[in-house]
């Protein structure tokens, strides 16, 4: 599968899971994974999922505007840069966001998130 298509598939899977089964995101992180969410740093799959499942909204919908990807180096990693909108239930206007993923290959031929940085883009 071509890298751009892989990146797009991963991103769609990630946000689909985020929006419908947030606890399932645990499968996409490992112990060494790092998340910086609006400046707050969290390490490890358990802590990351605890953070994401305790965000102050029950329902949300991510819609992706752009996905850019590049190989990160000799170990098969992929950097993915996403911009999009986050619609929260009850909010009139969607929030704009940027998110960066550094994906590392798993022995089973999939990817997990090693680095994850999320920022809202305020006007």
């Amino acid at each position, binding site marked *: 599968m071509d890298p751009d298509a892989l990146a797009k598939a991963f991103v769609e899977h990630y946000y689909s899971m985020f929006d419908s089964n947030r606890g399932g995101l645990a499968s996409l992180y490992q112990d060494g994974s*790092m998340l*910086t969410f609006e*400046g707050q*740093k969290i*390490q490890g799959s358990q802590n990351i999922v605890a953070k994401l499942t305790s965000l102050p909204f029950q329902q949300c919908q991510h819609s992706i505007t*752009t996905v*850019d990807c*590049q*190989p*990160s*180096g000799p*170990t098969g*990693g992929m*950097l993915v*840069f996403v*911009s999009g909108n986050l619609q929260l239930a009850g909010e009139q206007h969607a929030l*704009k966001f*940027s998110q*960066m993923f*550094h994906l*590392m290959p798993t022995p089973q031929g999939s990817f997990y998130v*090693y*680095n994850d*940085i999320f*920022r809202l*883009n305020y*006007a």
Partner: protein
Amino acid sequence: MEVESCHVDVVGKAFVDHYYNLFDNDRSSLASLYQPTSMLTFEGQKTFGVTDISCKLNNLPFEKCKHIISTVDSQPSAFGGGIVVLVSGSLQLPAEEHPLRFSQMFHLIPTQDGFFFVQNDFFRLNYG
């Protein structure tokens, strides 16, 4: 781990300040921050290698600009000493009344002489 991540924050911020200072005041010198293996995706357009990246940045359709940084987030990447950095900010162009908002991602790799170069670079304007 705490010490390591503080170091990464300091390095990430120092690099970003240096990068945009060069961009805004001496754009052709940005070449010193890229290498033949570097990649840039600028508004979806991919460019490879220091020569072509320099050319792309030097030929953007504005002479002067000023970057104002709002946020810088850094993390160690999976490599020996590599750092990923996510920046958000505004880009002021002389002809434009309002600054353009942008996000940029850098993957920095250490050089032999203790500095960093940009291995991966992504730039996107944030519209709306």
